[in-house]
């Protein structure tokens, strides 16, 4: 198999995911409505209660809407990553996953291509969100929007890989509700998405410690700095390592000789 075979395969997987996404317009709106509800309602209501002092990358006091925007971009990616996971479990139950897995190209490449397709979709969703937020006076410097693309790519890959690993462990679609309760909500609420870490520390040292280890916190911080044209190197390293770990686990999970998939009868 030559490079051109890999490129064609990659292109085919991206095209298929985009086609599916375009046919599921409800999914697009649901992905947007969720963070917009937080922006328009939650942030408006809590603006006066939750004061945010000057913390990097901000150089002045910022409105709460501005503070939570990177967290809400992370939320889009977190839900998108889990949507990838859900669609993998669905594909496995419906059988279409077999079409992908019997391709002669290496399984790690097939899974990573599928992940990239999910990330691409989440980046489009993020920019549509930012466009709407712009009318709500949530603006970033122009350079920030460009730096944001690689940051969103990396954080999206990390969250997608986590979703992919979860999909290799989940036996049935019905078990997916547990993912909401045990993965998405804890990850989101024990992070710096809604309030800065110093505020969490004031309330609970334990929660602060959990938040500092939570990879989602670092994904949000990576996005936050990138939105202002800056790079948070610690978060970049943390997210890169977490991404490598989750991706390795996902590939292991789908390995027919070692992974969890082989133990799930009927897949």
């Amino acid at each position, binding site marked *: 198999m030559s490079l051109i075979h890999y490129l064609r*395969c990659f292109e085919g997987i991206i095209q*298929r995911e985009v086609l599916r996404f375009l046919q599921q317009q409800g999914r697009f709106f649901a992905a947007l409505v969720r963070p917009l509800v937080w922006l328009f309602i939650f942030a408006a209501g809590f603006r006066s209660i939750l004061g945010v002092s000057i913390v990097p990358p901000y150089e002045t006091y910022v409105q709460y809407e501005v503070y939570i925007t990177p967290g809400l971009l992370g939320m889009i990616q977190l839900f998108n990553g889990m949507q990838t996971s859900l669609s993998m479990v669905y594909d496995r139950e419906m059988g279409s996953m*077999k*079409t992908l897995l019997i391709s002669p190209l290496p399984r790690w490449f097939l899974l990573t291509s599928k992940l990239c397709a999910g990330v691409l979709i989440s980046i489009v969703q993020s920019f549509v969100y930012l466009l709407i937020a712009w009318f709500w006076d949530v603006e970033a410097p122009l350079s920030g929007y460009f730096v944001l693309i690689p940051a969103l790519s990396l954080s999206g890959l990390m969250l997608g890989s986590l979703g992919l690993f979860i999909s290799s462990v989940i036996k049935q679609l019905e078990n997916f509700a547990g993912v909401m309760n045990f993965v998405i909500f804890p990850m989101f609420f024990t992070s710096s998405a809604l309030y800065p870490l110093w505020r969490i520390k004031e309330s609970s040292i334990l929660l602060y410690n959990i938040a500092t280890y939570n990879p989602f916190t670092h994904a949000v911080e990576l996005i936050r700095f990138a939105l202002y044209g800056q790079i948070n190197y610690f978060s970049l390293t943390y997210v890169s390592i977490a991404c490598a770990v989750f991706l390795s686990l996902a590939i292991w999970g789908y390995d*027919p*000789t070692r992974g969890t998939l082989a133990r799930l009868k009927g897949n």
Partner: protein
Amino acid sequence: MSEVPALHVDEISFSYGKQPALKDLSFHLERGNFTVLLGQNSAGKTTLISLITRLYSPHAGSIRIYGYDVRFQSAEALKRLGVVFQQRTLDMDLTVNQNLMYFTSLHGMGPDQAKQRIAQELERLGIAERRSEKVRKLSGGLIRRVEIVRALLHRPQLMMLDEPTVGLDLASRQTIIEHVRKLCKEEGLTLLWATHMIDEVAPSDQVLILHNGKLIASGTVQEVIDRTGTENIRKAYEKLIDINN
């Protein structure tokens, strides 16, 4: 020196947790033969096909497709293989053409070659005019035909079909069986047809009879009949199942 067989299965075993599914299974398929893998439900047919396609990996033994080990030379092995799974594997929300184009890309085919092959194979199965329809709108028989088209697009040398006629009406069954037999005869494609329906076995076929994860008979239809001392393949099959229960 003899030709490398199309499929060589050597002492493979597999279990789901502690529940054994296949035990020390060995056989090979000669090139260009039509072989029926016969077995009741839960005999291990689908598990065997999952192992050959590398969806699972055997706990012991090896599988070779045209001499290439499925585990260690999977790219070479899998590109020679076309599969129609028992479960429907087309994306119901995409059109026939979109599904087929997706499959060709998974095999690294370029768009021009893909379009040409899709047109050829759809035409051969008489469903060219359905290419723009969503799969969801097709009948079970047509979906099966699209899956056969898809399995042939990359010109495999070995094709496996897992219970492809289950749930189909008589006319659809007939169309599919005739088409597949024609492929075997005219193009020299090696075929493994898994079924539990004894009436799908023709006198010229090779048979492999699988029961409770073990291969209990193999050879030509006549050889199996002679070995069991019965009058026909149905009686031979029933006798073999009785002996091995």
